[in-house]
């Protein structure tokens, strides 16, 4: 009985889209490697500088 009451209706679920509908701007993933690397290294230097002062 417990198993039946915990049954998920997979037929119903299979009718739903597997894609969330979200989209990323064209070229976004190509650009973030450089942007993120530079920003993060810079921010980390500031962070380290800040902590060394303390």
């Amino acid at each position, binding site marked *: 009985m417990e198993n039946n009451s*915990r049954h*998920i*209706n997979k037929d*119903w*679920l299979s009718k*739903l*889209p*597997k*894609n*969330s*509908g*979200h*989209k*990323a*701007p064209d070229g*976004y*993933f190509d650009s*973030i*490697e450089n942007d*993120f*690397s530079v*920003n*993060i*290294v810079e*921010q*980390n230097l500031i*962070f380290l500088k800040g902590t060394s002062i303390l």
Partner: protein
Amino acid sequence: MIDDVTLVEQLQDVQTKEQAFRVLIKEYKERLYWHIRKIVVSHDDTDDVLQNTFIKVFRGIDNFKQDSKLYSWMYRIATNESITFLNKKARDRNVDISEIKQELATSLSSDEWFTGDEIQLILQKAIATLPEKQQLVFNMKYFDNMKYDEISTILETSVGGLKASYFHAVKKIEHYIKTRTD
């Protein structure tokens, strides 16, 4: 492709850290982006949270012990950063986080980076009504096809608990959609 053990060793070596970090971003940027995007919804907010996630990874990698998988550890950071972001947004506006989630889902219909059809929009609105844990489990299981073992490591919740959360999430989504499409 470099394996995670070697990558972590390079990330923890000051001589190779920056170069290895580029490799890390290249390898994980898309997976983490889509994981965060499903939580915070808007592209711009996802971009901010993704960057914050990589900053945390960069700062925390020296203390990372290879007793868990690298991606599990990063997913956990990304999840926490996303939830912290939404909580801050709710706190700043003095409203409950559930209200923020509802607003975000409603805003999708005019979001240039949402191209879903009517049923995808209703599904997103249904997901927005779920409690946090159920929302996370549903997204990771349904959209990302992750195994319960993997989700369990990331969310630090038992597999049994996750199965129950997924079951309740599906039931609520089913009810939400049926009452709006029948």
